[in-house]
């Protein structure tokens, strides 16, 4: 796959996704959105953007959850359209994007079942991009081995799950471990797949996935403080396709507190800035937000180059960020809690 014959199979979709990208909300749109007094105002303003009439058939009063569903629905329709039009390797690439949503859905369902929630109550909460046929029968499994043998073996995630079978039962900690182990295997596999595609897809996606891997490594480490997770188990969850691999991960594995994590990040220029500028004080950006900001910056870069698949990944990620922004603003508006309304992350 190179720039010479990229357009034969993927030219239409690349054009399409670039068009979609043009519809991503701009800074001026956000300035208007945060002035909204009610959700109706929000709807009115979104109507004048690329979202058009996506809320037109919703009865008022509008709920934030309805907006969320509709946002997801719009993304899913766009994504499914692209998926249906695509051929391999792009089709495989797009499938890989959905796997991360599948992992989230599985974890959500297992956690829900653990807390004795009815499956019908949990299904609507799953992200529609990551739904699969066997999903609703997930609650029959009570051990990881059963989960694998009965449900996941037929899904594309089967190969990622093999490492987790040894876990004895499904409790909260183990589910977290399963999630991270799945993610780790998924990221590494996706990374490998992108490398086989080569060219600018490989180059761009290795950047994007390296960041994703490193972010997970940092967050796993930070979240593990104060839990009973042993250090060597923690080390096993780090995805090994990022810039932190291998020295940074080894150092992270030894870390005992936030300061030590920060010290690890010192060695990496791109992450050092994020740690330096973040703080937990109110009014300043948290580390999570800084990571999101960096991600947006990284994703925007994808559109500077042509003839590669990275823009599809980037578009989904940017759209996700946009949904988060809109939902954040909508929540702030709905709860009349305007103090932090402008801590969304602008994209363009």
């Amino acid at each position, binding site marked *: 796959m190179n720039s010479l014959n990229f357009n034969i199979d993927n030219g239409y979709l690349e054009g399409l996704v670039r068009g979609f990208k043009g519809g991503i909300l701009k800074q001026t749109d956000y*300035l*208007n959105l945060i*002035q909204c007094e009610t959700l109706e105002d929000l709807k*009115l303003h979104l109507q004048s953007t690329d979202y058009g009439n996506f809320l037109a058939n919703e009865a008022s009063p509008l709920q934030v959850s309805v907006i969320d569903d509709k946002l997801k629905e719009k993304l899913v329709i766009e994504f499914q359209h692209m998926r249906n039009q695509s051929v391999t390797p792009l089709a495989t690439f797009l499938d890989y994007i959905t796997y991360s949503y599948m992992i989230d859905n599985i974890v959500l369902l297992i956690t829900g079942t653990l807390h004795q929630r009815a499956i019908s109550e949990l299904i609507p909460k799953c992200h529609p991009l990551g739904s699969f046929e*066997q999903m*609703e*029968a997930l609650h*029959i499994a009570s051990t990881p081995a059963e989960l694998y043998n009965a449900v996941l073996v037929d899904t594309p995630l089967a190969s990622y799950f093999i490492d987790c079978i040894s876990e004895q039962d499904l409790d909260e900690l183990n589910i977290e471990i399963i999630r991270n182990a799945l993610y780790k295997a998924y990221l590494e596999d996706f990374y490998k797949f992108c490398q086989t595609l080569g060219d600018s897809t490989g180059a761009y996606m290795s950047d994007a996935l390296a960041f994703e891997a490193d972010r997970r490594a940092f967050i796993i480490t930070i979240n593990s403080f104060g839990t009973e997770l042993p250090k060597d188990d923690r080390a096993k969850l780090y995805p090994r396709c990022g810039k932190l691999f291998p020295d940074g991960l080894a150092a992270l594995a030894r870390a005992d507190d936030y300061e030590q994590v920060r010290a690890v990040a010192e060695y990496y220029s791109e992450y050092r800035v994020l740690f330096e500028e973040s703080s937990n004080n109110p009014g300043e950006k948290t580390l999570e937000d800084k990571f999101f900001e960096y991600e947006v910056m990284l994703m925007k870069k994808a559109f500077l180059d042509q003839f590669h698949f990275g823009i599809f990944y980037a578009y989904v990620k940017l759209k996700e960020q946009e949904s988060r922004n809109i939902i954040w603003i909508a929540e702030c508006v709905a709860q009349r809690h305007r103090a932090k309304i402008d801590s969304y992350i602008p994209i363009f």
Partner: protein
Amino acid sequence: MGSLYRSEPVALCQLFLQSEASYSCLSELGELGMVQLKDLNVTVSAFQRKFVTEVRRCEEMERKLRFLEKEIREDDIVILDTGDNPEAPAPREMTDLELMFERLVKEVRDLNTSAEALKQNFLDLTQLKHILRKTHSFFDEVDRHYDSALIDLQAEGTESVNLLADDSLLVTPHTIRFEFVAGVVERQHLSAFERMLWRISMGNVLIKQVDIETPLEDPITGNSVLKSVFLIFFQGEQLKAKVKKVCAGFHATIYPCPETKAQRREMAMGVMTRIEDLNTVITQTEVHRFALLSSIAESIRIWSIKVRKIKTIYHAMNWFNIDITQKCLIGECWCPVAQLERIQRALQRGAAKSGCSESAAILNRMDTREQPPTYHSTNKFTSAFQGIVDSYGVASYREVNPALFTIISFPFLFSLMFGDAGHGFFMFLAGLLMVIFENRLIRMRITVDVWDIFFGGRYVILLMGLFSIYAGFMYNDFFSKPLNIFGSSWSTDLKNMTVDGRYASLSPINNTNGVPYFAGIDPVWQMSSNKITFLNSFKMKISIIFGVTQMFFGVILSFQNHRYFNERINIYCEFIPEMIFLFCIFGYLVILIFYKWLAYDASEASCAPSLLIGLINMFLMQYDTKEDGCPPLFKGQQAVQTCLLVLCILCVPWLLLVKPLVKHYERKRGLTYGAARSGYVLMRNGDIELQASHSTLSIQSGDVLLQDQQRDEVVHHVDGDDEECLSNASEETEVRMPCNANTILV
């Protein structure tokens, strides 16, 4: 009515409307359709405007109407469209409409929910019917083999069946008990369903499945889905729980299924009667729903129009400024001067309707330096031609409107290309029919896009047909056959003919009677073997003549514009060089064409020079020394052509450079004034920034817009020179492009 030659004079007016009268006044103005309102609140975001609640209420109503329309379409009821155009209802009627829509939507919703419940019930029963029917054959088979075993089981009253066809089991039928679950699952999930059952039981279940042939209707979406009946046999309570969970996971519906034949039959009978009962109820609900939706369908079109009108009126009111006392709306609008009377009257009507005095609505003409919008008053005949012109570009305010000339030139140029009287006649007929039955066709309201195009251009088609008849007559082409109306002037006098094989050559010297064919082309050409060569040469010359004439005409129209707008410099730096340029090449060419037609006759045809080669040689400055012994076209040809060429080349820098240079010097001279002005703008900008930092966000964003506008102005100012150059260059290309096209034609 104004003339079509220039767009109508348009004036900027200020509208003062008393708040009570504003709605009905705007309604009247909307019906009149002669006013273009200006948005005076560009800087205010959509949801901060004054009448946003009303707009939103209208949107809510539209949503309800959309819902009703969707329901009507689902039932394939025809929506009545009488073509009535109701006026916007009074604002107080809005509440009535809202309440009515609310009630209707609720009614339809209620009907839907009850229909849904009924249908769900119906679906359940049908599925049960299928299960009983399908499993029947299966159990029958078992029964035949294991009658005795079943009798035993019945005696015990347990829910189990023995089904393994293994002879050893016959001996001890009680040792292994199998439980079963019967149900229905969607066929597309069947394979995944089976696989998962197999996996959770480690292969210890037996699944039998039969497809239900008829698709079933999903009660919620209304789609038809294919389903299959399944029977799962397994052993043990634990497995049962798991199987049930899987069934739930795959949305399979499980039904109790009695194991004895008699019980099954009894149940089947019960199900059948219940299905029949349900059917009558469902039909009744559907009839009721149909009646309700039909009554809605009769007036939904009218309601939609009304709601849209209300919405538009409030939308327009959002463009008005509101004065401090809140008693008056102030707006600005463009309106054609000729229509001012009618607008005034409409305003008075509106004021009267709202019960206010006539002074409630005041229209005040204002002076402005802004460029007004272009407005051409068209009628049904001219509007199609105006549309053709507008699709290329809309003339600026008060510029000459080419549509006027297009009325004749467009069909004429079309006919030159079409050129067949017979086909043209049909086209004329089609156009004529559409024009004659115009009113009836409008009333029929055909909503096909292609028809809209044809019907919209009916007068164009009519004229195109008419001109085609004429052109076909001149080309002597009637369904691609010639007509010998006036008698051909060629004769086949065998004495003077050379016959070469199958062809006889007619010489224009010997075989004509010397009188040209009365009008058009001699029919004899249609059957000659060199017809193409002759006609091509003729038609191309004709095309050049008409093409060049049209270009001259266009340039003359631009002269009209320059004179009208008093732009001396454009006359000297655009019109004159353009004319000279055009004349020196193409004007000269046209003269040569006529000259050649007149100067050469058949006897000296061998010496007639090729004009194409002549034109090329003119540019190459090549003049043959007489090889063929023919004289040049005329005496002094070389001197004249060289002179024309030099003139032509001189025009290029004249066109390109003179105007920008003149403008540049003018600007330099007026620099002091310009500097002062831009300084003023800069100061204002500073001012606004200061203001913005003090005021709220909304004002800030508004002012940013304002600033941008001003910056644009400044940029415009600075870039003036380049732009001038560019516009001149584009002007140049504009002239050159058709010239090139013509050269290709030659």
